[in-house]
């Protein structure tokens, strides 16, 4: 057995049966080993697409995603995806081929210092210098990727290591891991803060479901009887029938969520990180609130907002330990009235398709447990506002990095992770073109991914900011020369349909869901439609701008 074959054996030992990648010179021995391996490799059409598919696979399943690339340009094409996984805490192992050690450091063909490039976008990066180190290093990479706050790990393997005799595969050595003890020392203090609060609020991020603490969260909210809001990554964490859930907070959050958070006197931050898109002007964010912060990453505590009480460790233990009954019926009634008063309106005039209404229709029509993968921009915020999810694993959106081009390849990964579930990629006309080559992957593997392109022939979110904050100087945001998306899909043997009027939407959705294979629905909307509400940069979250036209 050589090093390359050992890599595949270790992947199997780790329970990996699906990997994504693109071959090239320095990783050819591993691709030669793939040829006869039971590990199924999915050939993407660009390394970034392959890595986003691995991220979609990981986020929709909770498993570690694995992607491969060759040295040089293959490796550099992974960088954006690694950064995406880093900022959204996605467990990912990226394996790159490297030139042989004999020529490393000589600017050899397709040689780049990917380990150096990766330092700021990975949780850790390894260079394997000997076949003897391969198994232990790969096992350690998986352990790092999934432990604590998950994240991406790069393993760079020179070609000579892949070709070297590797001997037999030993039973996986127990990887080193840094024990994180859950301390409940401050739980009495937390319970007292909760019991004494008049206006408590739970602020829920992606960390709750990643900790496997969804059941404990529902119990906590039921026992404490407090309202809740979620971040983009936390959406789906709160049971759909919870009457005290106010929606997403932040720049494009619901009015009820933002107003209530601004008014609360105790903010319980669960697996979230006070991101600037959440807080708006940090100094004015929840100005009267004391904070209880629960996270698994010590570096998030007191990073941007001081917490009166904080907990590190396993959310499943912490939530029951801090739950306390509250007496805040007036506050619940107030939050409920905010929700009623500021509900979404879908009575949009005219015949043209109104994206929020169309997405609401899509949300109501899609099968239970469907996975929706977004790109980035206006459509992403409309999805967050107008679609409902039963689990955060059903809503894959590039949150921290905000990477256009994420949605289509992420949907490929999600469909492979959960073939029994419907997977829908909702994209914009700008984002879709960023990884459009992955239509080739859908075609090759006949993946029944449903694609909805919301097309305003603009880079809509940038254009919205130009309209609001740059004196309507629409610099480089006109995409009115877009391709014919339905014809483009047809070139990949994917059927599709284009709609422009509201009264066409229901039947178009029906046709899309009825069709057994991949399908592209092109939805043309008015470029004047913008995302509301919006918290302007530098403003407090209560100072939302509402629709101006």
């Amino acid at each position: 057995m050589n090093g390359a074959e050992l890599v595949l054996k270790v992947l199997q030992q780790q329970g990996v049966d699906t990997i994504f990648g693109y071959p090239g010179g320095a990783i050819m021995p591993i691709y030669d080993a793939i040829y006869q391996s039971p590990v199924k490799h999915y050939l993407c059409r660009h390394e970034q697409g392959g890595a986003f598919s691995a991220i979609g696979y990981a986020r929709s399943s909770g498993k570690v995603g694995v992607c491969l690339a060759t040295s040089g340009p293959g490796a550099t094409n992974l960088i954006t995806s690694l950064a995406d996984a880093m900022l959204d805490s996605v467990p990912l192992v990226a394996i790159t081929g490297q030139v042989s050690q004999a020529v490393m450091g000589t600017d050899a063909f397709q040689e780049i210092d990917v380990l150096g490039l990766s330092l700021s976008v990975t949780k850790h990066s390894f260079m394997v210098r000997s076949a003897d180190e391969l198994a232990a290093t790969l096992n350690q990479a998986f352990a790092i990727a999934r432990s604590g706050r998950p994240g991406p790990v790069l393993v760079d393997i020179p070609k000579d290591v892949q070709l070297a005799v590797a001997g037999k595969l030993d039973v996986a050595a127990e990887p080193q891991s840094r024990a994180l003890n859950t301390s409940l020392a401050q739980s009495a203090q937390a319970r007292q803060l909760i019991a004494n609060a008049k206006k408590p609020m739970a602020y829920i991020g992606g960390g709750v479901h990643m900790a496997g603490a969804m059941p404990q969260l529902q119990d906590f909210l039921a026992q404490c009887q407090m309202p809740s809001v979620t971040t983009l990554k936390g959406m789906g964490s709160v049971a759909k029938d919870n009457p005290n859930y106010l929606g997403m907070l932040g720049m494009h959050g619901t009015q009820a969520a933002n107003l209530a958070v601004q008014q609360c006197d105790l903010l319980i931050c669960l697996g979230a990180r006070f991101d600037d898109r959440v807080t708006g002007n940090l100094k004015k964010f929840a100005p009267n609130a004391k904070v209880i912060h629960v996270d698994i990453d010590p570096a998030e505590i007191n990073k941007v907002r001081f917490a009166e009480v904080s907990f590190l460790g396993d959310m499943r233990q912490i939530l029951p330990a801090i739950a306390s009954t509250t007496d805040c019926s007036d506050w619940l009634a107030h939050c409920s009235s905010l929700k009623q008063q500021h509900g979404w309106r879908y009575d949009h005039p005219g015949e043209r398709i109104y994206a929020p209404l169309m997405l609401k229709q899509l949300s109501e029509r899609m099968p239970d447990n469907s996975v929706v993968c977004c790109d980035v921009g206006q459509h992403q915020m409309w999805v967050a506002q107008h679609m409902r999810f039963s689990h955060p694993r059903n809503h894959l959106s590039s949150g921290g990095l905000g990477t256009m081009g994420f949605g289509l390849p992420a949907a490929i990964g999600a469909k492979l992770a959960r073939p029994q579930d419907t997977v829908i990629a909702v994209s914009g006309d700008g984002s879709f073109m960023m990884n459009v080559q992955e239509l080739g992957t859908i075609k090759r593997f006949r993946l029944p991914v449903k694609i909805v392109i919301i097309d305003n022939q603009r880079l809509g979110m940038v254009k919205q900011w130009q309209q609001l904050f740059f004196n309507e100087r629409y610099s480089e945001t006109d995409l009115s020369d877009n391709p014919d998306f339905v014809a483009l899909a047809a070139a990949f043997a994917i059927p599709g349909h284009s709609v422009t009027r509201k009264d066409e939407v229901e039947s178009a959705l029906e046709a899309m869901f009825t069709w057994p294979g991949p399908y592209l629905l092109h939805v043309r909307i008015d470029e004047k439609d913008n995302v509301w509400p919006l918290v302007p940069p530098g403003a407090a979250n209560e100072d939302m701008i509402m629709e101006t036209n």
Partner: protein
Amino acid sequence: MNHTLNITANNEASVVERLLQVTRYRGYQLAGLELTPMAEKAGLSITLTVSSDKPIHLLTSQLHKLYDVRDLQLASADIAALRA
């Protein structure tokens, strides 16, 4: 204000780069760096001095979670100043 950190790290090729990358990215200026390899494969002893107006815990918490960092202590003078 200067802060001195005493770090024990795995003696891996990229460990110093990673420490310096995090230090720069998080907004701290390098004011001093000493490296001493410990006994055979026991690791690296690193004394890192940084300056910044930011609280030092924002850097130590980021450095401490790096895989190759085994131990990190603020120099005693820093601890005394923080307690003052």
